[in-house]
C-alpha cells in the first residue's frame, strides 16, 4: 500500500511559531530553527471560531491541506486517525495533510485531550467541517464546470464529472480564499461502506522522527536567548522558605536565584550549572507534618469525613434481597495513590513580556492552561499564546501544566525566555496524583446461582469547581483557584451482569491527602477490578466456570462476542476456580477473565490472562494476555492495537508495582527505584482481537482496555492459588502474606 510509505516521514514547517506535523512526501527534514523571536503574537488573523469550516481546514494553492485542532496527540496516534477521517470526508489524499495541534493562536477550541474523547467528540467535529467543505467545493465545482452537482464527483482533491471530461482542483476553486461558511453538522457524510482511508493501518508520521532522533519534543525546544530553569521544591509539602544562602552556589557560573515568597528557582544560560545549583543551593525551610502517611492510608480514608453521598443506582431492594440470598458475599477492594510517572519530566518554555506571553507546553489542554494563566496573572487571554509540542506520555493531568506555571514565574522574573524542566524527583514527587479508591461490595446469589442482590459503596474525593491549583503559584503566594477533580471516577460501579436489586452509592470525601488529577481511565480501573473480582468470587463460590457465569448474565451480543473471543484466544477450558491441577514445582498456574463495557456505554472489552505464581517468593509471572476489543468503527487498526496493547501493559504495571508512598511530610517514592514500573523481563505475550463495526460510530480507545486488566489478573491469581488479592499493588510481599494466611 503506497500510503504506508508516503506517510512515514515527518516534516517540520513553521507556521507562526508552531511546529507542524506534515504527512508530505519527499520534503527534506528541515532543522528546527527555534521559535519566533518577535513579540508574542496571540492573534495571527486566522479564524478560530469552532463553528467555522476555515477554523479547522485550510486548503492551500499547492493542493495540500492543514488541519487545525485543539485536540493534541499525546502519543496515541490521534493526529493520524483524525487526518484519516478528514482525508476520507474531503476526498483529498492523506499524504497532503499537515496537522497543527493545540496552538491557541491557530487552532479552534473544540476541547482538550482527555477521556478518550479525541475520536468520538474531537474528530466528529472535524468530520463535520470536512463534510461541509466537501459540499461547498462540489457546489463551486458545479458553477465552474457549468454542470449539475449530481453529475460530479470528488477524486483526490478534484471535482470531476462522473463520466468523462475535465475536472477542477479544490485549490483552483478556493483560489487561496477562505470558504467562509459555518459548519453544517447535517452536511451529508460519506457512507462508511465506501471508506478507503478510514480503516487502513496508516503509519503515524511521528514514529520515523522518534526512531531517528529527529522528532522535536517539548524538551528539545530551543528559543533564542533562552535560559534554563529548575525549581527547588521544599523538603516537606507545606514548608515555608525561611532563608536562602546564595553564597552556597557562588562557585557555579552565572546562576541567578529567583525567590518569590516560598517559590524558589534557579536560572542560568548553562543547563548543567542550573541543575547543580538546584541541587547545591542551601535553603532553610520550616517543618511541616500534615500528611496521614501511606502505610495506613486505607484506615485514614475510611475514617475521614464524608462531604456528601450520591446514590448512582437504586433498583429493586438490594438489602432485602441480600438478607434472603442463598449465598451471601461481601468484600472490600482498595487502590492506592498512583503517579502519572511520565518518563520525561514535565517541561515548558515561557517567554513572558510586558505585552503578552508565549508558552510552549505538552499540556493536554492548551486553552485551559491559557485561560488559567491569564486569570492568575490578570492578563487578557488574547495576549497569551500557548503552543503544544510533543511530550513524554502524560496519561492525564501530569506535571505539564505546573511546569508551565513554573516557567511563567521564572520568565516573568528574568524578563527572558526560560526553559523549565522538572527533575525526576519533581515528577514522581509533585505531579498531581491519581486518587486512592476504596470499594465495599455486598451481594447475593439465589439457589440457582443467579445474582439477586448487588451493592457497591465507593469512597472518592469530592469534586470542587475551579481550576486545579498550581504548586508554584501557591508557593509564590499568588491567588488562584483551588478546584479539585480527577475525572469521572464513579463510572463502572455496578455489575456488568443482570442483577434485579442493585444499589451503588458514592461517599465523597471532604479532603484528599495529596493533590489529585485525572490519571488514565480515572476510577474505572479500580471499579472494574472490584466489580469483576466480586463477580468472580460469586462464580467460584457457586462452583460455576467464570466465563459461563458471566455469559449467563449477559444479553448484549457485542458483550457476548468479546467475552467468548477473549476466552477462545487463550484456550479457555470450562471448569470452576480455583485450579486443582498440580503445581509446576513452586509455580502455581491459573487463568482469569474479566469483562466490562467502558463507562457503561462505550467500548466492550474482555480480557483473559494466564499467570504463574511462585509460592516461594510471591512473585507473579503474567504469561499470556488475550483481549477482545470492540469500539465500533475502527479508524486505524494499527494505531488502535498499539493503544490497546499499551493499556494492557501500563495497567499491569499499575497492578503489580505502583503505589505512591508518603510519610507525614512528603512523597517518598520519588524515583524509579522507589516507584518501580513494569520492566521487559515481566512482559507477557499479548494477543489482541479487534472487532470492527463500520456501521457504529467509533468511541475512543485510549483507556477502555485498561479497565478489565487488574480484575483478570486478580482472578487468575485466585485460580492459581485460591487466594483473593483485593489490595493493589500485588507485590510479592503481599502475595506471600496472603498465601501464608491461606
Amino acid at each position, binding site marked *: 500500500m*503506497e500510503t*504506508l510509505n508516503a506517510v*512515514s*516521514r515527518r516534516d517540520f514547517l513553521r507556521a507562526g511559531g508552531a511546529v507542524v506535523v506534515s504527512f508530505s512526501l519527499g520534503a527534506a*527534514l528541515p532543522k528546527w530553527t527555534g521559535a519566533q523571536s518577535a513579540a508574542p503574537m496571540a492573534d495571527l488573523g486566522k479564524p478560530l471560531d469552532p463553528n467555522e469550516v476555515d477554523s479547522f481546514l485550510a486548503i492551500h494553492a499547492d493542493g495540500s491541506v492543514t488541519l487545525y485542532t485543539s485536540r493534541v496527540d499525546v*502519543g*496515541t*496516534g490521534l493526529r493520524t486517525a483524525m487526518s484519516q477521517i478528514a482525508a476520507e470526508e474531503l476526498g483529498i489524499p492523506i499524504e497532503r495533510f499537515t496537522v497543527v495541534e493545540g496552538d491557541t493562536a491557530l487552532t479552534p477550541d473544540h476541547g482538550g485531550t482527555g477521556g478518550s474523547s479525541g475520536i468520538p467528540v474531537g474528530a466528529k467535529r472535524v468530520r463535520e467541517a470536512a463534510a461541509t467543505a466537501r459540499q461547498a467545493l462540489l457546489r463551486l465545482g458545479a458553477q465552474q464546470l457549468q454542470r449539475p452537482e449530481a453529475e460530479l464527483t470528488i477524486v483526490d482533491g478534484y471535482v470531476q464529472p462522473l463520466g468523462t471530461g475535465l475536472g477542477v482542483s479544490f485549490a483552483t476553486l478556493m483560489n487561496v480564499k477562505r470558504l467562509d461558511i459555518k459548519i453544517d453538522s447535517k452536511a451529508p457524510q460519506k457512507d462508511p461502506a465506501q471508506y478507503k482511508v478510514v480503516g487502513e493501518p496508516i*503509519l*503515524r508520521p511521528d*514514529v*520515523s*522522527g*522518534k*526512531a*531517528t*532522533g*529527529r*522528532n*522535536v*519534543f517539548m*524538551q*528539545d525546544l*530551543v528559543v533564542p536567548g533562552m535560559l534554563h530553569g529548575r525549581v527547588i521544591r521544599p523538603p516537606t509539602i507545606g514548608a515555608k522558605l525561611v532563608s536562602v544562602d546564595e553564597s552556597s552556589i557562588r562557585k557555579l*557560573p552565572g546562576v541567578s536565584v529567583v525567590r518569590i515568597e516560598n517559590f524558589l528557582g534557579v536560572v542560568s544560560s*548553562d*543547563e*548543567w*550549572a542550573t*541543575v*547543580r545549583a538546584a541541587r547545591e543551593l542551601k535553603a532553610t525551610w520550616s517543618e511541616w507534618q500534615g500528611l496521614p502517611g501511606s502505610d495506613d492510608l486505607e484506615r485514614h480514608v475510611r475514617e475521614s469525613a464524608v462531604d456528601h453521598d450520591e446514590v448512582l443506582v437504586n433498583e429493586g431492594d438490594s438489602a432485602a434481597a441480600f438478607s434472603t440470598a442463598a449465598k451471601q458475599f461481601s468484600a472490600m477492594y482498595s487502590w492506592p495513590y498512583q503517579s502519572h*510517572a*511520565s*518518563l*520525561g*519530566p514535565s517541561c515548558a518554555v515561557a517567554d513572558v513580556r510586558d505585552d503578552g506571553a508565549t508558552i510552549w507546553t505538552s499540556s493536554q489542554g492548551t486553552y485551559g492552561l491559557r485561560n488559567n494563566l491569564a486569570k492568575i496573572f490578570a492578563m487578557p487571554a488574547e495576549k497569551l499564546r500557548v503552543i503544544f509540542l*510533543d*511530550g*513524554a*506520555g502524560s*496519561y492525564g493531568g501530569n506535571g505539564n501544566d505546573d511546569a508551565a506555571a513554573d516557567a511563567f514565574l521564572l520568565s516573568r522574573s528574568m524578563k527572558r525566555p526560560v526553559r523549565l524542566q522538572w527533575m*525526576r524527583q519533581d515528577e514522581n514527587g509533585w505531579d498531581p496524583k491519581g486518587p486512592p479508591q476504596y470499594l465495599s461490595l455486598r451481594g447475593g446469589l439465589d439457589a440457582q446461582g443467579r445474582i439477586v442482590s448487588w451493592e457497591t459503596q465507593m469512597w472518592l474525593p469530592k469534586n470542587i469547581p475551579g481550576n486545579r491549583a498550581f504548586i508554584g503559584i501557591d508557593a509564590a503566594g499568588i491567588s488562584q483557584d483551588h478546584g479539585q477533580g480527577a475525572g469521572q471516577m464513579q463510572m463502572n460501579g455496578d455489575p456488568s451482569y443482570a442483577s434485579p436489586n442493585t444499589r451503588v452509592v458514592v461517599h465523597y470525601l471532604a479532603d484528599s491527602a495529596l493533590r489529585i488529577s485525572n490519571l488514565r481511565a480515572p476510577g474505572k480501573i479500580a471499579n472494574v477490578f472490584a466489580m469483576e473480582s466480586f463477580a468472580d468470587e460469586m462464580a467460584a463460590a457457586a462452583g460455576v466456570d467464570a466465563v459461563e457465569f458471566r455469559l449467563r448474565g449477559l444479553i448484549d451480543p457485542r458483550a457476548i462476542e468479546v467475552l467468548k473471543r477473549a476466552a477462545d484466544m487463550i484456550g479457555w477450558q470450562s471448569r470452576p476456580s480455583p485450579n486443582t491441577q498440580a503445581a509446576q514445582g513452586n509455580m502455581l498456574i491459573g487463568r482469569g477473565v474479566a469483562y466490562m463495557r467502558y463507562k457503561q456505554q462505550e467500548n466492550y472489552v474482555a480480557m483473559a490472562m494466564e499467570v504463574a505464581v511462585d509460592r516461594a517468593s510471591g512473585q507473579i509471572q503474567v504469561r499470556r494476555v488475550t483481549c477482545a476489543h470492540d469500539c465500533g468503527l475502527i479508524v486505524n487498526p*494499527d*494505531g488502535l492495537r*498499539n493503544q490497546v*496493547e*499499551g493499556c494492557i*501493559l*501500563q495497567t*499491569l504495571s499499575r497492578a503489580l508495582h505502583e503505589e505512591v508512598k508518603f510519610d507525614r511530610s512528603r512523597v517518598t517514592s520519588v*524515583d*524509579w*527505584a522507589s516507584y518501580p*514500573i*513494569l*520492566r*521487559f*523481563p515481566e*512482559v507477557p*505475550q499479548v494477543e489482541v482481537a479487534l472487532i470492527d463495526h463500520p456501521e457504529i460510530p467509533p468511541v475512543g480507545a485510549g483507556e477502555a482496555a485498561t479497565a478489565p486488566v487488574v480484575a483478570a489478573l486478580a482472578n487468575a491469581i485466585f485460580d492459581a492459588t485460591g487466594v483473593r488479592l483485593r489490595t493493589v499493588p500485588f507485590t510479592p510481599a503481599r502475595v506471600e502474606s496472603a498465601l501464608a494466611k491461606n
Partner: protein
Amino acid sequence: MAKYSFHVNGRATTVESWDPGQPMLYLLRNSLGLHAAKFGCGLGQCGACSVLIDGKVARSCMTSVQQASGRSITTLEGLGTPDKPDPIQAAFITEQAAQCGYCTNGMIMAAKSLLTETPHPTLENVKRALAGNLCRCGTHTRILSAVLDAAGRLIQGSKLVQPKA
C-alpha cells in the same frame, strides 16, 4: 574553560566545559544540538539518555565529559535518518514501536549494542538486554518485535531501508 575532544557520530569534536563532571547528556544536547538522547531521570535508572560509547550502550546522564574524553560516541542521529534509517530504526518504524517515543532513543541504542554482540538473540535475550530501559506507555511488545525483526534484517544483510508496505 577546559576543552574535551572525542568523536561524535564519526566526526572529531571538541567541547568546552567548566565542570569535568558535567554529564555528556547536557553537552550533547546543548553544545552539540543532538537532542535524541533524553533526560529521563539523571540517575541511570531509565535509559532514555542512552548513547553508544566505543560501540557499547552507556548512560549519557552518568558519563562525565572527562570520562568520555577521547572516546567515540554515537547518538541515535548518527545511526540513520528518516530517509536512510539504520535497520533497527527501520524495524521500529515498520513495527510502529512507539507511542510517546520518549524512551525510543534508549531502546534503539540498547538494541544496537545487543545486536552487535549477539546477532541471533532469543526473545529472552532481548528482554534481558532491555531490562534497564523503561517504557511508560506500554509499547514493550512492539519494541521486542522490532528488535527481533531488526536482527532478522541484519542477518539477511538486507539493505532494506524502507518500511514494508
